[in-house]
């Protein structure tokens, strides 16, 4: 790791004439060693450009914080990943308490679009020159001017509904049909609305309307005792529950500067990979359903069910809820359970190899995937796509390797990356990743240290802040939290992998796809609505 103080001064020097400066002491002091710069709100676009160009900083999050109780107005925080330095960079912009605003970053950084709309809608901070300031996550009947992310808003507050406002799209050219899909649509799926614009068969364009399921998780967590937080984190996205609770627990552990016992780190890695496994197996099953390969679907579902049953045996829960607690794990596994893991890994390795071989040789399956739903590498980069989707479009990032956590630094694994960006690439990446997961699990089982799985956390003081991260099966997920009084939470910020990837999703639609490709494209992204909507 590069000396962060030196990096800090380089950054301040580079951004100096643009209004960058060292931060003064501030609320939500992060973890030692992280790099922070303070920037004037209007200099943000230039600073962001400089950071991306000269420091290869990768944008991961943007959110606002209501600091009016401290008489500091609002604070906008941008988080960048410095992959080469294995560090995180925070860019702070202090905004006026009465008329909070900043220069929109959308031109410099297209991915900032949704983030800015969230800040605008929920915190009442205006990104100037944003091309379209319309509501994003709040329900259509939510009254304007009620900002839930401000400190004075309570989670259980009554919010009287107003006349619903639905976002009107620009009319399509003559002859184009708007094909509405959802929110209640095919099969057993989550709620979300796609408006497909087709010229009949050809997909010309696609609009997204997500956030039907916005449950206000960030607000829900405020004021909750820290030890209860994993319960909330698990329910951000039930199928990435372990990754989310791990992210949260790691954030709390970093804030408390607690070293988790090695056995807990190793077992966390094991469980995280089991979660990845069942997700990737389920992904293949769903994709086979989309392409009509029923037997293959059943075969992958069988493997998925076996992993889920193993989860139930290990964790007492098929989706690994309740495993992570701040400071470690809630239970240890005996040798018998580990033997069960070992046995399943052997079976999975054999079966997955066979199934992958058969799958890749099935012409009817490949034909539907190849060249379908192309996400170009430049689009993936512009919209900061993460996880398997990013890696299928040439974004060579993986938090497990670039910012190692748990026991990932101690195991050996490869990160598959492809440049093609089509549905086939996304499938291939997940097949490879699942095999890597087995590889990791084998190593963990071979080198599992003994000892405790839990180290108690001391009570965190108010104002402590930390970022936690983990590579969920769908990509990088980040939680940032600020501790409040009495061991409760003051502010919870969740950036899920799906939120980052949904923006890129609609870029994969126009072009050479036809209407019947859509289910395949949707499945090949395998995005979670719950995660994005949270």
């Amino acid at each position, binding site marked *: 790791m590069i000396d962060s103080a030196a990096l800090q001064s380089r950054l301040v020097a580079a951004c100096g004439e643009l209004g960058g400066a060292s931060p003064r002491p501030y609320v939500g002091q992060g973890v030692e060693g992280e790099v922070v710069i303070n920037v004037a709100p209007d200099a943000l676009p230039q600073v962001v450009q400089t950071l991306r160009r000269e420091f290869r900083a990768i944008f991961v999050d943007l959110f606002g914080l209501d600091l009016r109780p401290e008489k500091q107005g609002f604070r906008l925080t941008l988080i960048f990943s410095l992959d080469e330095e294995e560090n995180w960079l925070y860019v702070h912009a202090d905004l006026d308490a009465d008329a909070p605003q900043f220069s929109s970053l959308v031109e410099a950084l297209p991915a900032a679009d949704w983030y800015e709309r969230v800040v605008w809608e929920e915190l009442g901070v205006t990104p100037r020159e944003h091309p379209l300031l319309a509501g994003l996550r709040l329900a259509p009947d939510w009254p304007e001017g009620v900002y839930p992310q401000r400190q004075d808003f309570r989670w259980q507050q009554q919010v009287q509904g107003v006349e619903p406002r639905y976002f009107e799209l620009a009319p399509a050219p003559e002859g184009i049909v708007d094909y509405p899909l959802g929110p209640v649509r095919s099969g057993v799926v989550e709620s979300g609305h796609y408006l497909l614009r087709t010229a009949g068969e050809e997909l010309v364009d696609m609009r997204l309307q997500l956030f039907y*399921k916005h449950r206000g998780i960030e607000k829900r967590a405020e004021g909750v005792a820290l030890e209860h937080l994993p319960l909330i984190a698990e329910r951000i996205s039930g199928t990435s529950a372990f990754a989310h609770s791990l992210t949260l627990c790691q954030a709390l552990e970093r804030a408390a500067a607690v070293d988790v016992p090695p056995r807990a780190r190793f077992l966390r890695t094991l469980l995280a990979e089991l979660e990845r496994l069942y997700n990737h197996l389920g992904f293949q099953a769903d994709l086979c359903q989309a392409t009509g390969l029923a037997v293959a679907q059943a075969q992958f579902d069988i493997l998925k069910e076996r992993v889920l049953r193993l989860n139930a045996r290990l964790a007492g829960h098929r*989706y690994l809820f309740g495993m992570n607690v701040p400071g470690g794990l809630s239970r240890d596994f005996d040798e018998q359970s580990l033997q069960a893991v070992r046995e399943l890994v052997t079976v999975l390795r054999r079966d997955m190899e066979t199934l992958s071989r058969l799958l890749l040789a099935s012409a009817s399956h490949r034909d539907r995937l190849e060249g379908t739903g192309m996400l170009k590498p430049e689009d993936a980069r512009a919209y900061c796509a993460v996880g398997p989707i990013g890696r299928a479009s040439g974004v060579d990032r993986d938090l497990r390797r670039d910012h190692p956590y748990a026991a990932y630094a101690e195991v050996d694994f490869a990160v598959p990356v492809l440049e093609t960006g089509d549905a086939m690439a996304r499938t291939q990446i997940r097949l490879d990743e699942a095999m890597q997961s087995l590889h990791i699990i084998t190593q963990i089982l071979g080198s599992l240290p003994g000892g405790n799985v839990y180290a108690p956390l001391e009570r965190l003081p108010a104002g402590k802040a930390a970022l936690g991260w983990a590579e969920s099966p769908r990509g990088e997920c980040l939680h940032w939290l600020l501790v409040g009084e009495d061991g409760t939470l003051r502010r919870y910020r969740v950036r899920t992998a799906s939120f980052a990837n949904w923006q890129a999703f609609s870029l994969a639609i126009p072009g050479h796809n036809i209407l019947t490709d859509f289910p395949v494209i949707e499945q090949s992204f395998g995005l979670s609505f719950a995660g994005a909507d949270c």
Partner: protein
Amino acid sequence: MADTLDKATREAAEQLQARVQRLLGHSLHIRHVDAGSCNACEAEIKMLLNPYYDIQRLGIFFTVTPRHADMLLVTGCMTRAMVDPLRQTYEAMPDPRLVVAVGACACTGGIFGQSAYTLGGIGDILPVDVYIPGCPPSPLTLIHGLLLALGRAEQRMHHDTRQVKSSRALPMLTPGA
């Protein structure tokens, strides 16, 4: 008087229930709606179709359009934005129709409860016939719940108020503490 009326209503309701179960008992088509779940309930419902549980062997099928559905299977804590779509789905279903709430969220709101964002369960929006608790309910729980709705399984959970006599003093109880 009120008692007899109640009895009559109850009997009518039971007859209706019996008729619904007779009509749908052997082949049931389900439309699922996600009203704000975390996706774990959906994952478990989807697992009902895998070879381990194979719910189709019980004559239960999932259908795409509510126009063909006999049962509405609702998951999630009833977010504000899903109220209208859920109502529309219910309206689009032909009679007789059953509503099943899946998971703690749909039953009562779960950890989300009633808030600015959520209505806390679907009970205020639709008449619920069967509650399936759990977070998420396992596939076997789901099968039990579906069969219960069809009158093909016994209900195991019953309301119960136990009385515990305690002869000990209440050392911890101090008014106003």
